[in-house]
């Protein structure tokens, strides 16, 4: 994975010094909260419902064990012994003190981490495929391109005060595991007819109160024009994105209001102009970055045999592992969704254990997924049982990946100042209702996503089943959506009808799964059946 050189290190160290200075000026009264807020947000520091919250960047979701260990240590030393992995592949801490924050950032900088641009109206942490560099089906490893974009977007002087936040995802496989088209810019690395690698650009996707699927804006951007093209996209947005209404300020509204073709025309015009400017890094820089993402020393001829006599292990292998490009290896996902647990939360001890296992059995590497789980990307099959046993002993071996128990949930009203309703208790009740392994297996793949407000941090629009918490005359109320998806077949869920109480929505989901099981044909997933039979039978069962 990427290793900082002296320049990268200097950049994060300088940022720590800058933020220390900003905190000093805030505490001395030289900065008001109105002035300080946008600055602290650009360092991932929020003021939440209970305390300050710090969001630490995990660029394209990749971590080494030293970094993961430190994340656990920070949870103990500066927080309350746990952290929360987010849908943007980051981690956040809920009980941070402002006065400690510069020290936390300094500790992070020592292991090449930071909280730069994890919030605020700027280009955010770039997300990617959690199986990058390990999946059998990818065209290239997307992470070098994500790293190139990370450096370009860090402190980009023209784009630090955009109309609104700006999220970029980079993938390089047909299987989209990063919800690429639900980003402000989605980039898919592709190969053209001449066999050259280039970038396909999508723009104007997003969730929030106006969910949109990003249209394709350019089929192929050559690698030696990648940064210039991204710069053109951002400049048009910075100049013409709406600033009169924060709810209409995302690029999706600009692309929608201009129309895709007019946005493309403006970008192409700006792109043609910017190509005359010496702003594109040489391909040698991309090559330099690529050298950091070479394969680890896989053992040639490692055995593909797995002893599956332990039924619990067998279930976990079937549910939570994915084919690796290297024979004898597997990609293993640690579910942070135990039955009745808090989706995405991990204790300091669990974080450190995962770090140790990655060091011992996954070439020192971990990934954070946008579904709030942790991945060991390169586990030798011969080691898998040992890894599973260690996870199981720590309560980390729940076998429910992509099933009804593997729920994405935002922190909701239990933690978030913006939320209208709690998300976590709903997730807990659903995972308990569908707690048995048999039941989860019967229902199969079912992506369930819960947001506690319309900002959609829990991606409810993109869930096969989505839940949106709303405030109905001071009481929590939950709307149900069906038919969303965020993969290669991205679609937006439709609301079933009137909302429910917390228990009512759990009952409604149970009824929806019964409709699915009664109508399922062959190997259909819940989503496939819904798409075939439509909303009506579900609505009738739920409200009838």
């Amino acid at each position, binding site marked *: 994975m990427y290793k900082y050189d002296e320049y990268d290190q200097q950049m994060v160290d*300088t940022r720590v010094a800058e933020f220390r200075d900003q905190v000093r000026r805030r505490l001395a009264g030289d900065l008001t909260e109105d002035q300080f807020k946008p600055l602290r947000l650009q360092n991932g520091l929020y003021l939440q419902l209970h305390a300050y919250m710090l969001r630490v960047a995990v660029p394209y979701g990749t971590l080494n064990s030293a970094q993961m260990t430190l994340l656990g240590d920070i949870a103990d030393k500066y927080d309350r012994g746990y952290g929360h992995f987010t849908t943007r592949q980051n981690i956040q801490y809920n009980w941070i003190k402002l006065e400690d924050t510069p020290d936390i950032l300094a500790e992070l900088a020592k292991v090449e981490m930071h909280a730069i641009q994890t919030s605020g109206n700027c280009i955010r942490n770039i997300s990617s495929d959690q199986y990058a560099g390990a999946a059998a089906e990818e065209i290239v490893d997307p992470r070098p391109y994500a790293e190139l974009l990370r450096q370009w977007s860090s402190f980009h*002087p023209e784009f*630090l005060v955009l109309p609104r936040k700006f999220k970029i995802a980079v993938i390089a496989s047909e299987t989209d595991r990063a919800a690429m088209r639900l980003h402000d810019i989605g980039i898919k690395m592709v190969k053209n007819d001449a066999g050259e690698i280039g970038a396909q650009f999508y723009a104007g996707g997003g969730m929030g109160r106006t969910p949109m699927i990003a249209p394709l804006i350019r089929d192929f951007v050559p690698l030696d024009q990648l940064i210039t093209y991204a710069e053109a996209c951002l400049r048009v947005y*910075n100049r013409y994105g709406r600033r009169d209404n924060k709810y209409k300020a995302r690029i999706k509204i600009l692309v929608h209001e201009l129309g895709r073709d007019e946005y493309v025309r403006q970008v192409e015009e700006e792109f043609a102009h910017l190509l005359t400017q010496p*702003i594109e890094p040489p391909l*040698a*820089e991309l090559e330099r970055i690529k050298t950091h993402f070479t394969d680890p020393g896989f053992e040639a001829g490692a055995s593909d045999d797995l002893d599956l006599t332990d039924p619990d292990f067998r279930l976990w292998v079937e549910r939570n592992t994915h084919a690796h490009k290297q024979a004898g290896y597997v990609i293993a996902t640690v579910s942070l969704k135990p039955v009745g647990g808090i989706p995405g939360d991990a204790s300091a001890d669990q974080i450190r254990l995962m770090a140790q296992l990655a060091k011992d059995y996954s070439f020192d590497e971990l990934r954070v997924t946008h579904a709030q789980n942790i991945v060991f990307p390169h586990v030798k099959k011969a080691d898998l049982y040992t890894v599973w046993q260690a996870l199981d002993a720590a309560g980390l071996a729940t076998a429910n990946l992509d099933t009804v128990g593997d729920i994405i949930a935002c922190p909701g009203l239990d933690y978030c100042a913006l939320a209208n309703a709690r998300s976590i208790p709903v997730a807990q009740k659903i995972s308990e209702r569908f707690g048995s392994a048999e039941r989860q297996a019967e229902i199969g793949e079912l992506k369930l996503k819960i947001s506690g407000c319309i900002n959609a941090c829990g991606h409810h629009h993109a869930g096969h089943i989505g839940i949106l918490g709303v405030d109905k005359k001071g009481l929590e109320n939950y709307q149900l959506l069906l038919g969303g998806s965020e993969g290669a077949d991205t679609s937006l869920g439709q609301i079933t009808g009137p909302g429910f109480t917390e228990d009512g929505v759990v009952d409604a989901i149970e009824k929806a799964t019964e409709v699915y099981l009664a109508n399922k044909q062959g190997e259909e997933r819940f989503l496939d059946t819904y798409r075939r039979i439509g909303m009506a039978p579900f609505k009738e069962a739920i409200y009838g």
Partner: protein
Amino acid sequence: MVEVQFRFREDEAVNDPAVTVDAFAAQTNATAVRIEPGDDARDLLPHLDRLSLVEVSFPAWTDGRGYSSARILREAGYKGEMRAVGDLVIDMLHHLKRCGFDAFAPDKALNDQDARTAFDRWENVYQATAVDGRPAIWAKRHG
């Protein structure tokens, strides 16, 4: 007239009254213009030869359109004074300078020492803006 607190130019300051972008095209004797956030800086491109002062207005520092306006004019070859005016904050001075600003007239005077620290804070930069004369880190890596 606004008070310039920081200026990074050797030439004599120009203090002609700045007119709006709309008025500038018509007033053929005008040499100074003020760009508001909603103005298109490219409207000035036909008139660069008679421009000697561009004021870019920041009614609120969180509106970043002025960064693009300045850089666009510099990219087109404008060499005169580029003055940031309005709600300027210390922590953005460096980034303004990178987009081609070389004079700064904040509504309220900034702490001089904190501002100097901010201007000089970043020894290296990740991007080439092509208008501030600074090499990007990638250029240094592949010198």
